[in-house]
């Protein structure tokens, strides 16, 4: 078996999501290579070469400056075919979810999404994946010879560099699909934040609709103090109190930090689906019946507008 890990880049470096895809490969226990795609990808390729991959393949081309599925998928499929890879893996970030299905369709491969576990039984792979907002787990097998999977970042700890340097090989970029001519990257409105990414943060301070217009005013000082990422429930995002990219949940980001503060969050199942893998959950809510208390390790029944400032004072002691 031979695994192809698709790297995800942020500017010229690897995103941590790539490290989770490497962990998947290591869990399967088969040789793997890493494919780095981008424009000006040397630095990311050098980083990728430190994880014990057989090879690092680099598709470095101006046409790959922005991650458009119509441009990336043909290159990934070409590399997967040329190298006879049996498994292609991405992390189930918005990047992976956008691109991987097109790769699967090109390869005639089955595609299992957002997997939270893998078992290798003498070459037969069984994938575990959450369904119904994490209220059940399914065990599935992909029936096609080539398999494409996206892995849940929160369930595959980031791989550490294992030393050494894999050989780096540049590959020629295949001609783009006709579909690529009909999509144009216009702009990126990047969320401006000095805080860690939700997928990588050790501590997350998350707020619900109860915060209303005071969302940032109340949560930011606590997040700043803890060096935490800020998250939000769908209700808070829907109501416009928090920007959409902060949404934690079944259809937003799935997170599993060391410490998760759920502040003024009642605990709808869609939100729980995104955070109940957190190692320690603290809930602050004035409603003692809120479902969030059923998953919280530490629950505090108190009005958040008094509890959060008090918490900041206490932490500064």
């Amino acid at each position, binding site marked *: 078996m031979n695994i192809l890990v698709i790297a995800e880049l942020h500017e010229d470096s690897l995103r941590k999501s790539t490290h989770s895809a490497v962990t998947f490969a290591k869990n399967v226990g088969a040789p793997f290579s890493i494919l780095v795609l981008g424009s000006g990808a040397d630095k990311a390729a050098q980083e990728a070469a430190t994880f014990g991959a057989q090879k690092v393949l680099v598709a470095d081309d101006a046409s790959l400056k922005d991650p458009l599925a119509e441009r990336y*998928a043909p290159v990934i499929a070409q590399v997967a075919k040329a190298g006879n890879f049996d498994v292609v893996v991405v992390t189930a970030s918005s990047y992976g979810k956008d691109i991987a299905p*097109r790769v699967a369709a090109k390869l005639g491969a089955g595609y299992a999404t957002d997997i939270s576990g893998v078992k290798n039984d003498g070459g037969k792979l069984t994938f575990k994946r959450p369904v119904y907002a994490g209220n059940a*787990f*399914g065990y*599935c097998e992909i029936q096609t010879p080539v398999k494409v999977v996206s892995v849940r970042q929160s369930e595959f700890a980031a791989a550490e560099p294992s030393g050494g340097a894999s050989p780096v090989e540049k590959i020629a970029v295949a001609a783009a699909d006709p579909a690529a*001519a009909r999509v144009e990257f216009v702009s*990126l409105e990047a969320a401006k934040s000095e805080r860690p990414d939700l997928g990588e943060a050790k501590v997350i301070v998350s707020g619900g609709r109860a915060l209303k217009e005071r969302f940032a005013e109340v949560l930011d000082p606590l997040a700043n103090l803890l060096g935490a990422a800020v998250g939000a429930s769908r209700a808070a995002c829907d109501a416009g109190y928090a920007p959409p990219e902060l949404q934690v949940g079944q259809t937003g980001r799935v997170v599993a930090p060391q*410490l998760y503060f759920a502040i003024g969050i009642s605990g709808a199942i869609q939100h729980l689906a995104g955070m109940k893998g957190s190692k320690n959950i603290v809930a602050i809510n004035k409603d003692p019946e809120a479902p969030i208390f059923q998953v919280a390790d530490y629950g505090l029944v108190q009005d958040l507008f008094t509890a959060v400032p008090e918490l900041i004072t206490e*932490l500064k002691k």
Partner: protein
Amino acid sequence: MKVLVPLKRVSDPDNANKIKIAGGKIDTTGLEWKPNPFDEYAVETALRLTENGTSPKQRLGEVVVVTFGPKETEMTLRAALATGADRAIRIDAKDEDLDGDLIARALKALVEKEKPDLVLAGKQAVDGDSNQVGQLLAEYLGWPQATFAGTIKSEDDKSLVVGREVDGGTVNVRVTLPAVVSVDLRIVAPKSVTSKHTPPTHNYADGVRFAALMAIMAAKKKPLVEVKLADLTTDTALKIKYSAFEPPAARKAGVKVKTVAELVGKLKTEAKVL
């Protein structure tokens, strides 16, 4: 503009914690069926793109809804017809005989017959949580895609500017039709969909529109045809097979603390995370 919207019915997502697992299989008996919320957003988006928002009863384009399922799933299609969709197609199939790839391949054949300008899909169904049909369909058709749309601006009937919600913010792309667009939650905000038909000052109600009783009655007369899956694709082998399901491990019950000081104490000495 002609828009095709694939719809799926799902067991009530707000009751997902009540699903039962017996003998390694999921049993949804007793749960209410609802349209997948993201698919309802796709229908709403399609209606907004094909109307003048100030007089929505007069349709300015065609919205065709399609589902895969047994006879009972026609209720889901009728509900979409009642909100303004023009006609419906049911592809006769059982849930257990389908996976995302087969659905995408069957939809490809349907798209080639129907020739819509745009396929608008929900980004994922909230039961299987797979998030793949739109992208697979785009690839099978050789069309461009814009996934996780939070905004759509149609300047004319040939291209759309789509604001895609990605992990680090919003990516704006321009797609030339025909294309596949999958929609995210915020696509149903008051100003998230703009077309040349609707005055820029118009604000939509937040969320999806409800059908009036009259419209529900009228929807019973709108065209709804049944198509056999075999008429769309002869290759009906599944690419993904499930061998078992199990419930998630229960989280052990936590403790309630009385004060902030007690909370901080526990986080420092017991959980050792501060």
